[in-house]
């Protein structure tokens, strides 16, 4: 009798569940992308081992929680693929774990069909439930990661699993560029099980199953980590993954000092080296291994969002209240001379604060150039006269401003600017400060001119830096104290808009507006990477993508990583030449395919 009762209750529950099971809306339109250009080389061969270095050993292999935010984490996270990503050149959505996707009419929901081939590294299939688990995981108090807790609570509403291979991710609010928010990565429920308060300790050195091309195979704490290619990787034949992730093993050795790493590189104990610093590119690389052609140099221009670095004028200072004075200041900064004569022409002039954002960038804006006549024109317009010492004066106001900075290497640039500005009648007083103290001073708006750069993101943001709600008060990023009603209107509209075309138009207008306010003097950008590599490492004809930050140091990145491969024949040949001390023609590749036009 009892058994029967249970059965009935059980059946009842089951039918209840079935009734409550979510249903996929009928009217959705599935999208996919198998037409964008591929960027890997068809000549790529699999195999080989490459060595690179890191300056410290990771404190943990956990990717969330205390001490997890080290530089090694990207090697783990890059192997945790997400549902979709964006093509590094076209910025269109490309399939990764999902084969198809669709947008909900509420502008908050995106639907995904999972690739049925997708497997965890332990062989278990990836299911929609693993995405549901991701949300549970990220919201759990046990992972001790308040930022993730907060983000996944406030930004993501829920994940709905329709069946094993169909799901929806719902954002909290309607958003422009929804796909950048809701493309979650799965986490293996079968591996983690139920989380408890021992999570942090328990998973310190656990190797979590992943979906990417590589997995940690061996490691020796304090010495090295080896990551091994999965021979039978589920995604190896996908359109945008084919011919990529080629080497069998990627070994990261701990070398705590980059000067010592350079010696390792010269002895071929590591295969790549960062030559972005002029010192290395121009001087230190004048050694036999380069001159004899055993090592190649590459200078690859990319096209990514550039840090808005330069001089930020505090408009609450009496001297900078007048627009003419701000323009005059900009025309008195001889940035081009610094680039040409101090930085060896290696850097490029930043034209404005939002370069490299693709169609969101207003490329018609040009930075104000050094021009003493223009400075004179604007200063006279503002009612100033040159004093006996050559500096502009008006009443008891003298055009002498403090430039606050923190990086010692920048002193060389600033002293040249200072001398040139003096010619234009402006005195710069250089003030070097400790990094955090400097930043505090800026946030409290106690500076005249702030010499700094902001970090970038995927789309330009204006509210923090230029909206009047953030002006005239401490601890906001509006360090220029820009307070302009029209600007506010534009920024509010940009933030409220969900329409990409409208947002692009507004972004461009705002950039023009910022240029007209003249509170920012853009200085330098470094839109390229420079590397040295032993010649048996091969790269595609176009060695990177618009968003390539390094050809070798982010080898697992889902969109830009793993384009290089190892050529055993060339390796043997080069070794022979080295033994015989014979020279090869030295090779320096300069690739300007994606170089920004200025």
């Amino acid at each position, binding site marked *: 009798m009892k058994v029967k009762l249970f059965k009935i209750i059980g059946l009842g529950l089951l039918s209840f569940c079935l009734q409550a099971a979510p249903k996929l809306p009928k009217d959705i339109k599935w999208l996919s992308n198998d037409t964008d250009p591929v960027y890997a080389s068809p000549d790529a061969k699999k195999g080989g081992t490459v060595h690179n270095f890191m300056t410290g050993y990771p404190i943990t292999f956990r990717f969330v929680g205390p001490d997890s935010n080290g530089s090694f984490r990207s090697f783990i996270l890059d192997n945790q693929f997400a549902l979709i990503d964006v093509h590094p050149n076209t910025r269109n959505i490309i399939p990764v774990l999902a084969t198809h996707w669709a947008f909900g009419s509420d502008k908050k929901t995106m639907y995904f069909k999972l690739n049925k081939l997708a497997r965890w590294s332990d062989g278990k299939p990836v299911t929609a439930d693993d995405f549901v688990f991701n949300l549970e995981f990220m919201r759990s108090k046990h992972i001790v990661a308040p930022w993730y807790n907060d983000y996944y609570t406030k930004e993501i509403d829920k994940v709905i699993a329709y069946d094993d291979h169909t799901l929806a991710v719902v954002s909290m609010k309607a958003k422009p560029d929804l796909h950048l928010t809701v493309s979650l990565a799965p986490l293996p429920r079968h591996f983690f099980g139920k989380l408890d308060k021992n999570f942090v300790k328990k998973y310190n050195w656990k190797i979590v199953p992943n979906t990417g091309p590589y997995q940690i195979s061996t490691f020796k704490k304090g010495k090295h980590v080896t990551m091994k290619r999965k021979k039978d990787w589920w995604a190896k034949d996908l359109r945008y993954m084919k011919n990529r992730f080629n080497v069998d093993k990627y070994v990261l050795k701990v070398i705590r000092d980059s000067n010592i790493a350079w010696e390792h590189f010269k002895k071929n104990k590591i295969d790549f080296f960062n030559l972005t610093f002029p010192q290395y590119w121009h001087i230190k690389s004048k050694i036999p291994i380069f001159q004899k052609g055993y090592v190649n140099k590459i200078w690859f221009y990319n096209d990514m969002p550039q840090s808005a670095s330069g001089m930020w004028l505090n408009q609450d200072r009496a001297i900078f209240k007048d627009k003419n004075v701000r323009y005059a200041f900009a025309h008195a900064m001889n940035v081009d*001379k610094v680039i040409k*004569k*101090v930085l*060896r022409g290696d850097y490029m002039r930043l034209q404005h604060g939002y370069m490299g954002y693709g169609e969101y960038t207003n490329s018609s804006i040009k930075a104000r150039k050094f021009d*003493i006549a223009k400075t*004179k024109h604007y200063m006279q317009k503002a009612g100033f006269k*040159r004093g*006996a*010492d*050559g500096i502009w004066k008006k009443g008891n106001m003298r055009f002498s401003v403090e430039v606050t900075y923190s990086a*010692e290497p920048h*002193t*060389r640039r*600033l*002293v*040249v600017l*200072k*001398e040139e500005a*003096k*010619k*234009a*009648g402006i005195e710069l*007083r*250089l*003030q*070097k*400060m*400790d990094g955090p*103290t400097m930043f505090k001073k800026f946030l409290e708006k106690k500076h005249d001119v702030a010499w700094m750069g902001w970090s970038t993101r995927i789309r330009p943001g204006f509210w923090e830096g230029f909206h009047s709600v953030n002006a005239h008060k401490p601890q906001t990023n509006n360090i220029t104290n820009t307070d302009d009603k029209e600007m506010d209107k534009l920024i509010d509209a940009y933030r409220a808009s969900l329409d990409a075309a409208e947002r692009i138009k507004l972004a461009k207008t705002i950039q023009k507006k910022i240029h007209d306010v003249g509170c920012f003097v853009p200085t330098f950008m470094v839109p390229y990477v420079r590397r040295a590599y032993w010649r048996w490492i091969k790269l595609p004809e176009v060695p990177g993508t618009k968003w390539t930050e390094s050809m070798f140091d982010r080898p697992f990145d889902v969109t830009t990583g793993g384009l290089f491969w190892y050529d055993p024949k060339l390796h043997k040949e080069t070794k022979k030449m080295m033994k015989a001390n014979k020279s090869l023609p030295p090779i320096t590749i300069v690739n300007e395919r994606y170089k920004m036009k200025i």
Partner: protein
Amino acid sequence: MRINPLTIKKFKRFKSIKRGYYSLLVFSFLILVSLFGELLVNSRALLVNYNGRLYFPTYGQMISGKVFGLDYDYETNYRDLAKRFKEDKSDNWVLLPMVPYNPFENDLKDDKYPPFPPSFSEKHYLGTDTIGRDIFARIIYGFRIAMGFSFILLLVNYSIGVTLGCLMGFWGGKFDLFFQRMIEIWANVPFLYVIIIIASIVTPNFITLIIIMAMFGWMGMTWQMRTTTYKEKAREYVLAAKTLGASNTRIIFKHIIPNTISIIVTYIPFSVSGGIVALTSLDYLGFGLPAPTPSWGELLQQGWANMNAYWIASSVILAMVITLTTVTFIGEAIREALDPKLHTTYE
């Protein structure tokens, strides 16, 4: 003014110590040169003869390029002006200083990157630093700043030290006890750390740096003066003066301090060299005077970072060796000349 025969004797004695005496001559010469540095090392010309009128640009306000018929408002580039006059073959001429560069300007070239090695034709006698500034100019002006710094620091330290030390020794008792303990505590504050912390919050300028250094530098002299005053106070002449009804002020200023002056003078050269070394090392570490102040420490730092540009490190090291040796030799000679043992009746 009559000079005390004893003092004359001391001077003679000092003069007879050749090493110290010549060091004094060299050192005074260096100071003299640095004081008139603008006449020797400067981008401004000493004399310009333009259309029959003479100009003396060295001191005073800048003369704009327009005055000499050039097309700009800012300060005239006299090196270019000299070249131009020569090319024009006019009667105009420019008399440039020995080194026609100031310590701030960047002499950059189109095809090469600094540091540039020493060159007589370009009048960079010691080469340029990593941003193309003349090293000789930076050494001369850096010397002047270092000397000014250590003399002012010395003045501040000694005024505090002598006053407080005298009072401690003279009054004794609780006043002495209190300051003894205070100095003991204060002396334990790690001075370099404090400067580093302060320098990271505010960029120190000349005056704040002196104040910070003086805050930790007054104790040595105070200690010394306290002991000496104690000793002198117990002498019969102080007792005699007291018996005759002399006031405390009179006793201190007329009797005690003149009798301790030899000790103070002996310490001066060593404090001067200490001041130079302190400023240089702070600049070297990047916690000294703000850029672009000419400074030996900053040059030393550049030299260290660019060992292949040997002329940077070698120039500044040579300059430091010369200065510190001469100062030390002077100090030794003074000490010997003032040694009380040589002035006893048994001589």
